[in-house]
Structures are given as C-alpha cells and as structure tokens.
C-alpha cells in the first residue's frame, strides 16, 4: 500500500466524537431489513467468569 493509498483509508474514529463514523453507519441494519426474532425474549444475559 502506498502512502497516498494510506491517506485514502477511512479514519476509524469520527471527527465529531458524538457521531457514528460513516464506515460503521454503513453496517447499520435497519428494522425493515431484519429477520423475525422469536428468540429475542427470555434470553439470559450471562457473563461467565
């Protein structure tokens, strides 16, 4: 990768610290594209030590 190509890579952190970076926003899955989620309720949210 050349130095110029490196400069073209997206910055992983946004300039505005409150905003979602554009490359992450592109991964957002909106509800109208989601599958049904019958498993969503009742899941234990455990964290094994």
């Amino acid at each position, binding site marked *: 990768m050349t130095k110029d190509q490196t400069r073209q890579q997206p910055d992983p952190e946004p300039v505005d610290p409150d905003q979602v970076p554009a490359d992450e926003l592109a991964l957002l899955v909106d509800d109208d594209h989601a599958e049904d989620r019958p498993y969503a309720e009742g899941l234990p949210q*455990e964290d094994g030590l």
Partner: protein
Amino acid sequence: VSTPNAPRTRPEQFAFLREQIAGPLDWEALCLSLARQAPGLPAIYPSAKAAMDATPLSRRYPLSQARRGMVAYFDDPNDSNPLAHIVTLAGWDGAGRTLDDLVTVTNDAKRRGGVDYVRASFFPTHWGDPFKFATDWLNGYDLPGYDVDAKPTPAPGRETIGKNLDHAIGDIRRAIRNHRAAGHRAVVKALSADLAALMETRKRFPK
C-alpha cells in the same frame, strides 16, 4: 478508591467490536461479556442486571448525554428476561437525540449470537425493554474517553481481584434488597443466582 481506566483506547474498543461483527455467531446471551471485553475489562459482575444496579448514580446519564464509547442498559424488571441488556454506544446518526438517532453495537438483535449495529429504539420496540441510562462506568472501570487516542493513563484501583469481587458481592446484595422491596420477584431470583455464582468465584481468590 479511584476508578481505574479501561486498558484499551476507544479505537481499540471499536476495533474489537468490528471484529466480532465480521466473526462467528459466538455471542448468544453474552451481552455483558461483549461490552466489557471490547474495552479490555475483566469479568466482575455475572449479569448485565448486576452491573446495571452496581453503576454509581453519579455515572448514570440520560439519553441526551449518551456518547460514543459509553455503554447503555435496557430493562423491564417485570418482563421475561430479568437480567437486563447492555449495549455499547456507537454514537449519534445526525443531529436528533431520540432513541432512533442513537446507534448501538449489540449481540442477539439481528442474528442469534451475532453482533450488529442497530438503533437504540430496537430494544423497546422489539424486546419491550426501555432505555434505562447510559454510562461511562463498567465493572468498576472508566470506559475509554472520547478524544483519547493515546493509551489511557493508569490509575490505581483496588488492591486485588478478591477485593473487587467483595465489592461486587456487596453491590448485588444491596440490589437484591432493593428489588425485593420493589416486588421484582424474577429479578430477585436472577440476582440471587448471580450472587451464588460470584461467591463461588470468590473462593478461588485467597485475598
């Protein structure tokens, strides 16, 4: 006791999460594990509910003060999941400040065991769990700061893991008393299981 900083920076926190999004579906029912491993925190509280109840009041922020890198909790103490849900906040999408404008990184929302970016409105809409609060505190650590690109400055915490666990056990006992008084029977049962698990863990640490 001062609150130690998370070992990872915010870019490292999100690099970890992006790896999980692209990775195998290994995160079913492991919301707290995902949220605390991203900034490199050790396991302390056994469930998101226990971690939520242990969060200092002074570190709980309303929706309008949510920031990228914080975590947030969604919970209805009377629904079928008494253990609550924790997500990492990816930030705001635009200038609005509603749950629809806030983007989270979560497990189990779009794919069982998968990690995805979803809007914060997903949880009240599809799981019936309202937003409780955002926080920059988790498992006794400060989460990575918002403009921190350098390694966080180390700060002293408690002397031993055992002392951290003792503190967590006290937090859960207080939470059980509060939920018992509020009539949250399912939460009391779930946190009692958390307490038993944590006391077993405590036995492994002599100090």
